[in-house]
């Protein structure tokens, strides 16, 4: 039989004003198992706490109910006091006589009766409480950052600068992401390469950062602080250590007509290539799908010319497994393809390009050295039409959301265009101008007022080619929908920002949630924007939703800070309110039937499958097992389990039923 003490607080007049506290103490003293019950003016005061501690010792109490204010207020206070007196803190509970009783009811018998009932409920709970100890898990202080765009670079640098190890995994041959392709950036029009390249180099040279380019995450096991990650290092067919980056192979490769991804198909590259001059690492990769040697065994020129013998045609993919404490996803976005636009020609008009292609045309390092030339015939376009919301905010054929960055980059494009083609005229068809950011709307106004971009509010219905011009048929909704037709030399579509290809697969590999568009889901849209629902996995940049660079960098740093905070501890301490699947000897018997309903219900992927084997190693059955590192203690699994094999510590079935028995 338990020895429980009940301590009823007056809270000055706050409780005692409506509740007859001495009577509550008296009524509750009669509850079986209660061996001590007193009331006092201010329980949370020092003398109040001392009173409790002494009572624990004097009456050898093994459970405590403090009938006072809300547990949200003082539960930690009294649990600490109980612990100091030698009672497991989880055997101390509070009955909420103030917020839930004295403050909300009149002074009368019913109110006092309710107060006594509230105490009764908690006494029964305490009787069924079990001592719990906070869960401790060790932390491996190495972070994995997936994706080497500006988000990933920023995160990696911040974590590395906090003194922790980082592995930065990038799937393409160089880090840099989309930002490396941009010409100049809003809202300040500074050169993208100029601000990005130093960071890329810093990341590559940082002693705490291990760069793995041309690599992808293959498998993730484990949980916060203790992930085991397998990365596939794809074969570049070039020995990175031996290669000096002299570039001879690249110049000599005879196979030069491969559409250049970095230049968005506006230029060509050879089969052995460095994606762009400032690439990090600045060493080539063989594109085996397009290399003659890999297609028919002929050629081999690169190998012949390489002065250091760095070409390795027989190099294989490598699988590397490592221990990781935290993961940051920074895999970015992709743009909707122009062939997704039937009314704009299914991508067949060469001079209908997307925003990224325009960036390349405007970039000093681009295929035209920054001179604006249209792709079809290299002429300077004198009229350029920009179409905002191409595929965005289009639930019929595109995506319903706003891509957020295109209003701004379109304004930027009109400016860059005007700065380069002084006599040119830019038109923008738009629906709304979304430029909510520091200096953003001013920037758009500048495009309109100083660089004379003509903004027309309406969507374009159709584009077709006639007499060497692109006929753009729009309407002006500020003029009652009056049809507007513009004969353009080039059209730039601000195509929708979408999640990366196969982002759902990646999310499943990592057990993180994603939204219906394939963007990774944050744990809470306002209060936990860089965390995922899976403890220890964080998000940065455009893999979560469309973002511009300032936001991406802010989020990268935020994710970095979260990781650094996590790594500031050697062990993680967590509330022991977690689910457990019952296990009873001999040997490891469980009532779990292995239905795994709990697994489907758990929002945190905390439930794993475990095989129970007999002595000879034969699998008797497969049962559920909760990973206490991942479980957040919501209890959803408990409600789902039909055999009551899984239960939640601190809010067990037994406890809740006991509470109900007092009614």
């Amino acid at each position, binding site marked *: 039989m338990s020895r429980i003490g009940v301590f009823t607080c007056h809270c000055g007049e706050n409780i005692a004003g409506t509740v007859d506290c001495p009577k509550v103490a008296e009524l509750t003293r009669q509850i079986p198992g209660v061996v001590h019950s007193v009331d006092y003016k201010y329980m949370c005061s020092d003398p109040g706490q001392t009173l409790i501690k002494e009572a624990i010792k004097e009456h050898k109490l093994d459970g405590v109910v403090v009938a006072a204010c809300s547990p949200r207020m003082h539960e930690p206070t009294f649990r600490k006091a109980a612990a100091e007196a030698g009672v497991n803190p989880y055997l101390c509970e509070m009955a909420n006589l103030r917020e839930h009783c004295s403050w909300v009811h009149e002074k009368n018998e019913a109110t006092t009766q309710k107060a006594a009932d509230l105490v009764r409920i908690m006494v029964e709970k305490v009787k069924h409480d079990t001592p719990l100890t906070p869960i401790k898990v060790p932390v491996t202080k190495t972070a994995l950052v997936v994706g080497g765009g500006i988000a990933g670079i920023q995160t990696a640098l911040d974590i590395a600068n906090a003194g922790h190890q980082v592995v930065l995994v990038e799937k393409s041959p160089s880090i840099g992401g989309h930002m490396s392709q941009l010409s100049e950036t809003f809202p300040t029009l500074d050169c993208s390469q100029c601000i990005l390249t130093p960071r890329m180099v810093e990341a590559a040279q940082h002693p705490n950062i291990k760069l793995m380019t041309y690599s992808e995450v293959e498998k993730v096991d484990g949980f916060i602080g203790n992930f085991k990650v397998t990365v596939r290092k794809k074969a570049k067919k070039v020995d990175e250590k031996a290669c000096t980056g002299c570039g001879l192979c690249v110049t000599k490769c005879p196979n030069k007509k491969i559409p250049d991804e970095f230049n968005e198909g506006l230029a060509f590259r050879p089969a052995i290539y460095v994606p762009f001059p400032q690439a990090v690492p600045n060493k080539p990769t063989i594109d085996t799908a397009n290399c003659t040697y890999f297609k028919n065994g002929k050629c081999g020129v690169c190998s012949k010319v390489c002065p250091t013998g760095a070409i390795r045609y027989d190099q294989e993919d490598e699988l590397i497994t490592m221990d990781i404490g935290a993961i940051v996803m920074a895999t970015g976005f992709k743009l909707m393809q122009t062939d997704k636009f039937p009314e704009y020609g299914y991508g067949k008009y060469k001079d209908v390009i997307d925003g990224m292609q325009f960036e390349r045309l405007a970039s000093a390092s681009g295929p035209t050295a920054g001179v604006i030339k249209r792709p079809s015939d290299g002429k300077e376009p004198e009229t350029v039409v920009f179409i905002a919301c191409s595929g965005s*905010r289009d639930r019929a054929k595109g995506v319903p959301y706003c891509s957020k960055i295109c209003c701004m980059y379109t304004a930027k494009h009109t400016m860059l265009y005007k700065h380069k083609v002084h006599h040119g005229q830019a038109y923008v068809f738009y629906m709304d101008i979304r430029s909510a950011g520091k200096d953003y709307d001013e920037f758009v106004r500048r495009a309109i007022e100083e660089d004379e971009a003509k903004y027309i509010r309406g*969507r374009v*219905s159709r584009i077709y080619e006639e007499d060497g011009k692109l006929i753009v048929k729009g*309407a*002006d909704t500020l003029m009652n*929908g009056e049809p507007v037709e513009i004969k353009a030399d080039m059209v730039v579509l601000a195509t929708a920002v979408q999640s990366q290809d196969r982002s759902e697969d990646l999310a499943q590999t990592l057990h993180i949630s994603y939204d219906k568009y394939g963007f990774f889901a944050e744990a809470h849209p306002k209060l936990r924007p860089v965390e995922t629902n899976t403890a220890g996995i964080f998000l940065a940049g455009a893999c979560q939703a469309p973002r511009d660079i300032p936001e991406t960098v802010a989020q990268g740093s935020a994710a970095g800070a979260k990781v650094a905070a996590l790594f500031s501890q050697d062990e993680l301490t967590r509330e022991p309110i977690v689910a457990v699947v019952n296990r009873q000897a001999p040997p490891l018997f469980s009532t779990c039937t292995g239905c795994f309903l709990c697994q489907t219900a758990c929002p945190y992927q905390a439930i794993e499958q475990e095989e129970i084997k007999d002595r000879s190693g034969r699998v008797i059955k497969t049962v559920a097992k909760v990973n206490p590192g991942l479980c957040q203690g919501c209890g959803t699994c408990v409600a789902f389990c039909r055999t009551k094999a899984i239960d939640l510590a601190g809010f067990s079935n037994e406890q809740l039923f006991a509470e109900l028995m007092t009614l």
Partner: protein
Amino acid sequence: MSSASHHAPHADTLAARVKAATGISLAQCYQCGKCAAGCPVSEEMDLTPCQVLRLLQYGQDKYDERAMRSAGIWLCLSCETCSTRCPQEVEIPKIMDVVRAEALKRGIAHPKSKDILAFHRAFLDSVEQTGRLYEIGLVANYKLRSGHFLKDVMLAPKMYVRGKLGLLPHMIKGTAAVKRIFKRTLGSKG
């Protein structure tokens, strides 16, 4: 203030009728103008398609009436260019059908609708009577209804010579059943 009550929206708006008849909510339209931009006849219309929708969005008699009195609604060809491209999946031709029907019912259809209606009525007459279209009958009937007598007669001989005009109607066996279909649908609505 006096006009406020006059403008107060009520449940029996044209938008509500559109919703009931077609399931389309006028609120879907975000006034991007893409419909007007692609419509082959919007230049001829006094109200462009998106403008018609805008008027209905107010949900007020005054604007509903403006839409119904418009000539433009009678020009819609039901070519579906607008609905094929509308990003918000608004089926404008169906809405036009409802607006026209309401305009007729309330007797406020634009005078220019006369010829167009005359044609459709003449066409349906032919179908109601014979079960099929009787082209010469249609032309004659249309001319009677619209008063434009000479417009197409010039073509008729050419068509006749090329075997394109039958002088006698094709009567189908089930004409009585077809007549009853007309009665149950068109007829029942007065």
